[in-house]
């Protein structure tokens, strides 16, 4: 359980970072608008990059919230509960989907950009996110099987 609590702490930290990130959009709106204007002709998707980035961040933030709820449920009620396996499945889908979408968009950016070195690094991060989502999906399947075994064990007198 200690490892789950550590993971919960890390997820909480990430959620706080994302909240600060969203708040920066409000407080530094003019700054971001200026950057967006100056770079829109130089990068793929132009002025929409900011919106795309914001939507991606919101989706990942939602995935983090689901992960937080899942970890909290595991700490409160133990492994292999109905709620935790469902939440794990949803979190896995969100991260896999986000990773794949980010991978696609950054691949398009890569082929249209001069700064390919940096983008290859970002592509690798997107791939890692998709891989994490996929791993979480596999763990959620194991959690399903664990739940069935636990239910049968609980009803074995």
């Amino acid at each position, binding site marked *: 359980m200690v490892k789950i609590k550590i993971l919960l702490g890390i997820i909480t930290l990430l959620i706080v970072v994302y909240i600060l990130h969203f708040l920066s959009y409000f407080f530094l709106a003019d700054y971001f608008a200026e950057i967006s204007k100056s770079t829109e002709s130089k990068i793929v998707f132009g002025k929409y990059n900011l919106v795309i980035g914001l939507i991606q961040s919101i989706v990942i933030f939602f995935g983090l919230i689901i992960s937080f709820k899942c970890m909290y449920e595991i700490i409160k009620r133990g492994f292999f509960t109905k709620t935790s396996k469902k939440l794990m499945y949803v979190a896995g889908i969100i991260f896999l989907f986000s990773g794949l979408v980010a991978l696609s968009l950054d691949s398009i950016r890569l082929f249209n950009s001069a700064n390919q070195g940096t983008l290859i690094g970002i592509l690798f991060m997107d791939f890692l996110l998709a891989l994490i989502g996929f791993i979480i999906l596999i763990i959620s399947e194991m959690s399903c099987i664990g739940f069935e075994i636990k*239910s*049968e064990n609980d*009803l*074995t*007198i």
Partner: protein
Amino acid sequence: MSIIINLDVILAQRKMKSKELAEIVGITEANLSILKSGKAKAVRFSTLEAICKALDCQPGDILEYTKN
């Protein structure tokens, strides 16, 4: 379920209460209730042995198979 548990019948014959049987067998009353109601998925041989010993009966007296 096709396996019926006739524990209530044997308990009535032996004039024993569920609580008493649960204590002798070493299971909780809740688990005994699950067993009696037919909701149990499985019974351990050790539990069955303890029940038969406590009620002085055969497994066939407690367990009955019916075609559903």
